[in-house]
């Protein structure tokens, strides 16, 4: 038996074996969606799609789920998760918007402007920022940034203006978005730089020959050519930002609160929030209660589906780029 295995395999058997191993991955994806969907079913059963909406008291619902017995009643499944969705969308949108601007500027700097010696330093720096573990970002956030915001940026007036509504400790939207931006920018820079390098230099040279200064030529020609890559980078960064749990859980204040623009701009930035991913981490210990477990799985399902949609979207926006590169 062993002898037979040791002999070189005929090609068709090797092909089938390798194919079977590869298809395991497809099975994993299907299993992931199936498991998470099945576990979150009770939430859909009792709330329909209304659990995505607002109108409930999220903290009270979670407390009720936590207190529920092993056989929860229908009322124990009551869930309105809009504050989480709002927190997720808000932090992601601001961080991605800031990130795009910084990433495009920094990529132009790296590829077009910086002297060779300097860009050789900046590239490893970008890789370093991308590989710092999120818990280290979180640690710096919770021990340095949050106390700084709490002690120096939040004024007494800010605190008094929302007295009785929410407590401003420094942990909240501002440090979350700041660190999130630093975490997702390197990914975008990698993609944008790659695209910038792939643009034929003759295009820009043509524009310069027509009288544009080098920077304007980059803006008018190079950046226009790589627009799909910028969108793809934003999509990828969005996926990363949506799923960030540990860092956000550490610096966002861990309170279900929807930052409210009506409170004025500086206060809005200091208000705490909770995202879908950080909620999963927050409630991980309560998973013994069936209803809370279903709630946690339904948050996961939402994140999983959005990752799915974003990866399909990323593929679609990259299509014109591929065609253009094939032509170039």
């Amino acid at each position, binding site marked *: 038996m062993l002898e037979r295995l040791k002999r070189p395999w005929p090609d068709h058997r090797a092909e089938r074996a390798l194919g079977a191993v590869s298809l395991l991955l497809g099975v994993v994806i299907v299993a992931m969606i199936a498991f*998470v969907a099945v576990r979150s079913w009770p939430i859909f059963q009792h709330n329909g799609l209304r659990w995505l909406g607002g109108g409930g008291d999220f903290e009270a619902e979670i407390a009720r789920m936590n207190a529920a017995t092993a056989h929860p009643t229908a009322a124990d499944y009551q869930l309105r998760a809009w504050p989480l969705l709002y927190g997720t969308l808000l932090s992601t949108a601001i961080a991605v918007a800031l990130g795009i601007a910084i990433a495009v500027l920094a990529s132009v700097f*790296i590829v077009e402007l910086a002297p060779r010696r300097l860009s050789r330093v900046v590239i490893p720096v970008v890789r370093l*920022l991308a590989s710092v573990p999120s818990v280290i970002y979180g640690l710096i956030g919770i*021990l340095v940034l949050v106390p700084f915001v709490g002690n120096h940026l939040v004024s007494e007036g800010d605190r008094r203006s929302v007295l009785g509504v929410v407590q401003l400790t420094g942990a909240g939207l501002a440090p979350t978005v700041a660190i999130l931006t630093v975490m997702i920018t390197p990914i975008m820079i990698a993609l944008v730089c*790659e695209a910038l390098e792939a643009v034929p230099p003759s295009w820009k040279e043509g524009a310069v020959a027509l009288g544009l200064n080098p920077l304007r030529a980059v803006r008018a020609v190079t950046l226009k050519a790589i627009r799909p890559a910028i969108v793809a980078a934003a999509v990828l960064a969005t996926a990363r930002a949506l*799923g960030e749990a540990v860092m956000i859980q550490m610096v966002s204040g861990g309170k279900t609160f929807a930052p409210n623009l009506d409170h004025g701009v500086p206060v809005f930035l200091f208000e705490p929030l909770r995202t879908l*991913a950080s909620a999963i981490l927050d409630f991980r210990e309560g998973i013994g209660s069936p209803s809370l477990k279903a709630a946690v799985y339904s948050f996961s399902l939402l994140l999983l589906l959005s990752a799915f949609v974003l990866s399909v979207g990323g593929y679609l926006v990259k299509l014109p780029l591929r065609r253009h590169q094939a032509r170039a």
Partner: protein
Amino acid sequence: MSAVAVRSGRTGGRRSSPMSWRWSDRLALAAAWLAGLSLCLIAAAIVLYMGYRGIQYLRPGMIFERPQASADQAGSGGFLDPLLGTIVVSAVGIAIALPLAVASAVWITEYGHGGRLSRALARVVESSIEIVAGTPDIVIAIFGLAVFQLPLLAPLSFQAEGGGVFGRSFIAAGAMMSLLALPPLYAATRDGLQAVPAHMREAAFALGKTRITTVRRVLMPSVRSNIATGTTLGISRIVGSTAIVLILLGSTLRIETQGAVPVVNLLRGTGSSLTTYVYENSPAGEGAAPEKAYAAAFVLLVLVLALNVVIERLGRGRRDVISSVI
């Protein structure tokens, strides 16, 4: 507008001085420099601050001491167990991810162009890997919990006295970590295989070798450095992941074994990693021992930087260094 354009046109080309540009261009130029340099500043600030705190709080003995339960930071010991936990989780994760990733990369580049069916299946595999790469690690962790809490898989994880299945063990965490390591490993192997010139394969076929022998004797040796790069990237992703360890390994700081068989009891047991040690000792966890958190975070950062240097060394001479961050 035309006056400015003509002026910059006259002085344009190589010698064009930013002083002659219109103010909005000068602003954009300044912003680009600012963005590039501030990234460097942020990175330098993180490394220097962590280095300063690390040197302040790290005692060499901490690496060899086991954590102790203590309310006092001075008495809570070191982080030998978390360090070992990180190593065990990485080993399990890579042991699962490596064969999977290499097999699927070989299958897709060498066999995936056959019939219509195999082309379709190859697309399925490729998009699965893309989806895995985009899935947040917290979701992978929650999925792992659902899988390993199945009664069928109970022997693979830590069990309470009464027989309750927690779905937490080094096997569970390592298996889910393999999903993190898989996409970079797969991409590195595939890129390597695609870069092997076709004439090397043709020469092997001309000598009467089968495809699989060609893969083993010709292609594998020539993509070895790509696989090494991919493995290092995978390890650095595993080492940095917190959520999977928090959910699938529990939060016992010490390694607790399960059963009597030497290696198996470790794999079935629970423990912690450097990332969760930092998390638990930070104000976000229970320990509130920031000195210990800083010391362990410093070790973690040094580990990640060392892996980065290895990646750079392995990938030297290849053009795609910057795109390998993801």
